[in-house]
């Protein structure tokens, strides 16, 4: 199922990152249009479009914008989360490298909607080329007068912590502090970066905004499902014949995505499991992939759309080893702030490692499940809940494979 390419329409052009190319393909027309719109009308248009956050949480974007207090007198900040760190996800780097002006134009429009004069773009530290390309585009936009006239963009590079992709961890880091998520309330829209109302949006989310303004909310909504409009970019990796990024309607099914776009299962050709939304999304068995890839479709399937990082595993993949790798990642990346996450990510990794090494004990699996469930929902941010997704789903869905590794 191919759908119209929107975000990636220019990816074929070698100069797609330049202002010239962007203008040739209708760039900054939406900004012209938006300047004639009332801020509230822009927010309303985005609400109607059913655009939902594409960084992971899937929160309705227009609704988020409307949380900015109306009577606030000081600055309001727009922060773009370009800290793409979710394992299995590599879409924002392409947008930054190949369509940077779409992000700038989207930011201009979003900033008008929330009455912000300053936008920060927090780019993952390892993303050197995306940072170069995006920074060059920012300079072009200043030179061309799109930026610097009521709206400024500050590009900030991260230093390599996954947790800085969590919106309040990102804000702490942006403020120059250790990237620790903040206790909520207050929420960022009330008290965010530097104590001011702040909207944090994902790169891809904001890149959609110019198209919504250009072509209307109804067009965008119709591209998707009832509760989520538009297309999104799926990062498909693992055992598929054609790994890469694919833009498709959110209404595409996981089976279509794997078979029709990504060329089908590689390895021994027989599908074992799929992680549909980045490493934090609970795993799906091969018989669970007839599911639409929108936020609610995957939620109803007991997993999540997350960042649309699709990790495909064929039958030769060891699920216990996969869980060990995932557990090592979460143990390494836990910020260490909240006790349950700090302590149990390390503990669970040690147990997973032991099982894989053949030193598992009979009660280990139940212990992991119990520890995971006890910690879930008790922490400041969603990091630990993201870790719990794989802990529980890998073991519950592939328990026999784990038990086979545990000495009798």
């Amino acid at each position: 199922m191919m759908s119209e390419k929107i975000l990636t329409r220019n990816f074929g052009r070698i100069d797609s990152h330049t202002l010239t190319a962007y203008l040739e393909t209708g760039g900054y027309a939406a900004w012209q249009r938006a300047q004639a719109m009332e801020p509230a009308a822009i927010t309303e248009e985005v609400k109607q479009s059913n655009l939902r956050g594409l960084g992971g949480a899937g929160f309705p974007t227009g609704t988020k914008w409307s949380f900015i207090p109306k009577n606030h007198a000081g600055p309001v900040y727009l922060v773009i989360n370009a800290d793409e760190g979710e394992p299995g996800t590599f879409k924002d780097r392409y947008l930054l490298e190949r369509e940077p002006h779409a992000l700038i134009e989207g930011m201009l429009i979003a900033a008008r909607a929330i009455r912000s004069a300053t936008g920060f773009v927090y780019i993952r530290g390892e993303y050197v080329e995306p940072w170069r390309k995006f920074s060059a585009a920012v300079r072009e936009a200043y030179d061309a007068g799109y930026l610097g006239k009521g709206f400024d963009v500050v590009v900030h590079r991260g230093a390599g912590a996954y947790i800085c992709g969590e919106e309040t961890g990102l804000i702490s880091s942006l403020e120059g502090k250790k990237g620790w998520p903040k206790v909520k309330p207050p929420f960022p829209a009330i008290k965010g970066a530097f104590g001011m109302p702040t909207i944090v949006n994902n790169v891809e989310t904001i890149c959609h905004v110019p198209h919504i303004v250009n072509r209307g909310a109804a067009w965008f909504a119709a591209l998707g499902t009832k509760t989520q409009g538009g297309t999104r970019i799926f990062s498909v990796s693992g055992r598929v014949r054609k790994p890469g990024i694919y833009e498709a309607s959110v209404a595409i099914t996981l089976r279509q995505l794997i078979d029709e776009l990504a060329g089908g299962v590689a390895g021994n050709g027989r599908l074992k499991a799929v992680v549909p939304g980045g490493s934090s999304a609970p795993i799906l068995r091969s018989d669970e992939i007839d599911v639409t890839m929108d936020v609610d479709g995957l939620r109803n399937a007991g997993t999540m759309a997350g960042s649309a990082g699709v990790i495909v595993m064929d039958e030769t993949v060891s699920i216990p080893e996969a869980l060990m790798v995932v557990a090592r990642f979460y143990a390494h990346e836990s910020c260490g702030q909240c006790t349950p996450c700090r302590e149990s990510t390390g503990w669970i990794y040690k147990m997973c490692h032991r099982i894989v090494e053949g030193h598992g004990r009979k009660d280990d699996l139940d212990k992991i499940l119990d520890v995971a469930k006890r910690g879930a929902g008790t922490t400041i941010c969603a990091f630990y809940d993201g870790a719990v997704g794989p802990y529980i789903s890998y073991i519950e869905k592939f328990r026999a494979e784990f038990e086979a590794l545990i000495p009798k």
Partner: protein
Amino acid sequence: MPKLTINGKEVEVPPGTNLIEAARKVGAEIPHYCYHPGLSIAGQCRLCMVDIEKTPRPTIACNTQAADGMVVWTETERVKETRRSVMEFHLINHPLDCPVCDQAGECWLQIYYMRHGLYEPRMTDAKVHKPKAVPLGPHVILDAERCILCSRCVRFCDEVTGTGELGIFNRGDHSEIGLFPGKELANRYSGNVVDICPVGALTDRDFRFQVRVWYLDTAKSVCPGCARGCNIEIHVNRRRPHHAEGRRVARLKPRFNADVNRWWICDAGRYGFEFVDDKSRLLMPSRRDDEVVTDVAWDDAIAGVAAALERTASADVAVIASARMANEDLWALRRLLVHRGIRQVGFRLPPRTPGDEDAFLIRADKDPNSRGAELCGLDGDVKEILAAARARQVKMLWIFGHDLFDSAWPEAEIAGALRAVETVVFVGTNGNATSERARWMLPAAAWVEREGTYTNFLGRVQRFRQAAEPLGQALPEWDILGRVLVALGAGAAPSRAERWFRELAEAVPAFAGLTYQSIGDAGAVLSAGRPLP
């Protein structure tokens, strides 16, 4: 004011009160580590979970403000289960070295495990190892393995002292408290991090390995280290005298007083008690004849001093009082001065090095009771007294506590003055260069060994209680002065500090109406009233 229901009891609290504080009002204790009322909310220990009706899952109480109509339950099964889980997480990488940990007995890991944990340990894997016995500064030492990363110490240095020495480094279960490069935990309030550390991670280098906390007795007191009068608790080791080489005062801890020091004290005050068990303490009354010092009985010493007073014309007697004396002592002295008609009295000596001061607690005036001494009318010119002494116009000089040689005045002037006086009487806790030139040396009880009151620079009268027996035969100054008054035929003298205070309150207008009862634990502010002339 929001009215809410906690465990079925209705309570009204000021707006902004969080649920931990609101629950205290109905007698419910919500366990917590990272929350401290004097610091910002961190919300990271995750122990203070409570159930709030209409919320889907337990919520942290520290970051939830009481709201009108809120219905809170602190002891539901779900809450108890969450606490057990969080306790398990707190302890999986903890070394469980209670037998060698100084915090044992006052450790919130122990307390909460016994109250809320009590699970079977399930951690069978290797624990994370971190640095141990790391000195962070002159007073504080870190055991990173015992640390539960509540960040109270970090927030203290960021928010209270503003010195920012500490941070949490690394991530996940390798996170650890540490110093920023080039920093040392040497701010003037560093000892407070030990008090607020809920576990044995930060311990006091002075106190550790001295005595187990369960052998300590405590008494409410006031710090005598400066004119602020921070409220403290004195922890004394009476039950294991063979520990800590006979040191009786084990440590001083701040005692909360909203109007004086809140939860804090400075390091100078915290560690300023060494003199109490020092070898230089005076233990027996003694008399010096030429260079021969003889211990004498109190009755003989009192009779000797009284005889010297009677023998000397009152115009030839001078007294150097001290603002380290309690109000009760100062009042007893005042009575003696009036009885004998002695007019030459003062208490202020310029310190050799001027006292430091800051905008928080530390005052330049390093004496606890200058205000009390002023109000008792003892504020004469000590420089004039010493000049008169050098001019042989003073035959008897009575000195309380001071080492005159420790002042900013030239040593030769002091020595000349002391040489020129026939009878020098010294009353003090410890011997010094001045006492060595005295004919009579009378041992005074240190503030931890007696009762009394100080008046701080803001006019707050605060009580300190007895924590230990006086060393040797030391007596409170009011008792020494009372005995001299009796020997002089001035009639009966009060036999308890409280009675002296009662007399003071009747005689000095500023103290009118105050009693030990009304002063209580938190102190009471003087009424407006001028000092006695």
